[in-house]
C-alpha cells in the first residue's frame, strides 16, 4: 500500500488535524470528527448537516462554509459516522430553525442518521432528512437497498446550502432537497480499485486491460467489468443510462467528477466527450463542474452527474459560496 500516511488507524484524525490547520475559518472537533464553520450562521436560519464515511474528500468537510454546509460529520474511511456524532453536529449548528440532514442512500448512513434524528428530536431539535439516491448504475427497487447516493450530493449540498443561507424555512429546504434529488442522476466507472488504509490492499483486482462500469464511491465493484475502452466509449456508457432514466432535455448542471487518482487533463477530456453527447440529446449545459468533488480514496476513474435545472436552481447555484472545495462570489 503506497500512501502518504502514518498508522492506518490514525489516518482520519491526522487528516482532520491538517484540515484544522489549513482552514482557520473552520472548527474541527477531533473527538467527534465534526467540522463546523468557525463563525456560525445567524440565529433563525435552517442549518444543513451532511456526513458519511471518509475517503470522499472534499465531500463533505470541504463543503462546510457560508453558502453550503453548516457541519460535516466524518466517519471512519468508508464507514458512516455513529448517531451520537451526527447528533452532536446537529445540536452544535441548530440555530433554532431546524436542521436538514443530507444522507447518501447507504444502509449504514441511513440507519445512523435515522438514530441521530431520533436523538435530536428527543432534545427538541426539528430535523428534516433528504436521502440522496442518484446512482443509475443500481436498479431502483423497493425490494433492495435502492440506489446509492453519489455525485448529486455535491450539487444538492450547494443548492440547499444557498436556500438555507437566504433564510428559507425547513419545510421549504426539505422540499427543495427532494426536488433536486428527483431530477438528478449519476453514473461512475473505475480504471483501478482503491485501497482502504486499514485493509492495506486494493478492494478489488482489476487487470490492466479491464475497467469497472457502474461503481459506487466505496470501492464497491461495479455492475460489470469489460475491456478498457477509449474515453468516447466510456462517456457513452456513462451518459446513456443517465439519459435513459430521466428526461434531461433543457437546461442542466453537469459534473464530471474524478474518483481521486485521475488527473485534471483526463477529466477535461472526458468533459468534452460528455458535453457532446448531452448536447446531442438536447441537454443545455448551463453550469458545470470538472474536478475531484466526491472521490473514492485513490481510485482512478470518473463519474458523470446531470441535474435538470430551472432559473430558480441556477439562481441558488450562482449564490456566493465560500468553502475549501467550492468557492465563488466570496
Amino acid at each position, binding site marked *: 500500500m503506497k500512501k502518504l500516511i502514518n498508522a492506518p488507524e490514525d489516518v482520519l484524525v491526522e487528516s482532520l488535524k491538517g484540515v484544522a490547520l489549513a482552514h482557520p475559518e473552520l472548527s474541527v472537533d477531533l473527538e467527534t470528527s465534526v467540522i463546523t464553520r468557525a463563525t456560525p450562521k445567524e440565529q433563525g436560519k435552517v442549518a444543513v448537516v451532511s456526513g458519511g*464515511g471518509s475517503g470522499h474528500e472534499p465531500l463533505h468537510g470541504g463543503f462546510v462554509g457560508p453558502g453550503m454546509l453548516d457541519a460535516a460529520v466524518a466517519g471512519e474511511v468508508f464507514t458512516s*459516522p455513529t*448517531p451520537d*456524532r451526527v447528533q452532536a453536529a446537529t445540536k452544535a449548528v441548530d440555530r433554532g430553525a431546524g436542521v436538514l440532514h443530507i444522507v447518501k442512500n447507504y*444502509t449504514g448512513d441511513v*440507519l445512523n442518521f435515522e438514530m441521530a434524528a431520533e436523538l435530536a428530536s428527543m432534545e427538541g431539535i426539528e430535523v428534516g432528512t433528504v436521502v440522496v439516491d442518484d446512482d443509475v448504475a443500481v436498479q431502483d427497487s423497493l425490494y*433492495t437497498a435502492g440506489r446509492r447516493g453519489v455525485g448529486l450530493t455535491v450539487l444538492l449540498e450547494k443548492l440547499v446550502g444557498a436556500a438555507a443561507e437566504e433564510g428559507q424555512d425547513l419545510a421549504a429546504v426539505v422540499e427543495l432537497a427532494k426536488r433536486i434529488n428527483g431530477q438528478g442522476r449519476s453514473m461512475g466507472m473505475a480504471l483501478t480499485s482503491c485501497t482502504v488504509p486499514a485493509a492495506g490492499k486494493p478492494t478489488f483486482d482489476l487487470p490492466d486491460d479491464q475497467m469497472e462500469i457502474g461503481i*459506487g464511491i*466505496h470501492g464497491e465493484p461495479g455492475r460489470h467489468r469489460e475491456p478498457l475502452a477509449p474515453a468516447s466509449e466510456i462517456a457513452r456508457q456513462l451518459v446513456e443510462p443517465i439519459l435513459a432514466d430521466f428526461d434531461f432535455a433543457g437546461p442542466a448542471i453537469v459534473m464530471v467528477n474524478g474518483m481521486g487518482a485521475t488527473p485534471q487533463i483526463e477529466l477535461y477530456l472526458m468533459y468534452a466527450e460528455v458535453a457532446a453527447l448531452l448536447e446531442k440529446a438536447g441537454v443545455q449545459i448551463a453550469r458545470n463542474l470538472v474536478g475531484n468533488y466526491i472521490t473514492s480514496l485513490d481510485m482512478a476513474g470518473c463519474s458523470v452527474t446531470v441535474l435538470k435545472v430551472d432559473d430558480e436552481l441556477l439562481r441558488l447555484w450562482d449564490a456566493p459560496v465560500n468553502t475549501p472545495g467550492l468557492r465563488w462570489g466570496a
Partner: protein
Amino acid sequence: MATISTDTLVDWISRFGDAVTEKREWLTELDSAIGDADHGANMARGMAAVKDKLGAGAPATADELLKSVGMTLVSSVGGASGPLYGTFFLRMGMTTGAVPELDAAGLAAALRAGLEGIVARGKAEAGDKTMFDAMAPAVDALDAAIADGADLATATRKAADAAAAGRDATEPLVARKGRASYLGERSAGHLDPGAASTAILFDTLAAAISGSS
C-alpha cells in the same frame, strides 16, 4: 447449567470481541468481495470499545450489561453493522429486565427481541443475504431445542450450528439488502460478511456457556 450469570454474558461478549478481532482480516476480505472492505475493522473497533467500557466495570444486571454493550456499539462502529448489532444488544437488554441471571427462556426471549430489533431497523427478510440469514435460523434453533427440553449448552450449540449453516447458505444468494445489493448478480458466490460475524456471535455464545458449565 440452567441459568446464565452476567459473568457468563460478559465472557460471551469478551469471546466475541476476541474472535472478531482475530478474524478481522477474513471479515474484511469477505466485505472486499461484495462490500467496502471494512466489516472486520468495524467489528474489531466496536468490540474494542466494548472491552474498554466493560473493563472499567461491568454492570451487575443483564439488562444494564446488554444495553451498555449496545450503546457502545452504536456509538463506536458506524456503518450498517453498528446500528444493527447495537440495536440487537439494546433490544436484548430491554427484554431481560434487571436480573442478575437469565434462564433458558429468558435468553431465548432476549435473542428473539434482538433479532426483531435488527429487522425493525434494517427491514431484512430471509434470503436477502444479510446477518439476518444467520441469526434467524439460530434463534429458531434455540427455541426449538429449548422446547425439546435441551439444556442451555446443547441448545446454544445447536443455535451456533444453525448460524453457521445460515452463513454458508448466504453464499449462492443474490443480495437484496445492504451494500452488496448494488452488485446485483455479481454478489452471488460470496459469503455475506455480516452473516459471518453473526455465526461467530452464536459460536462464542455456545462456547461461553459450555466453558462455564
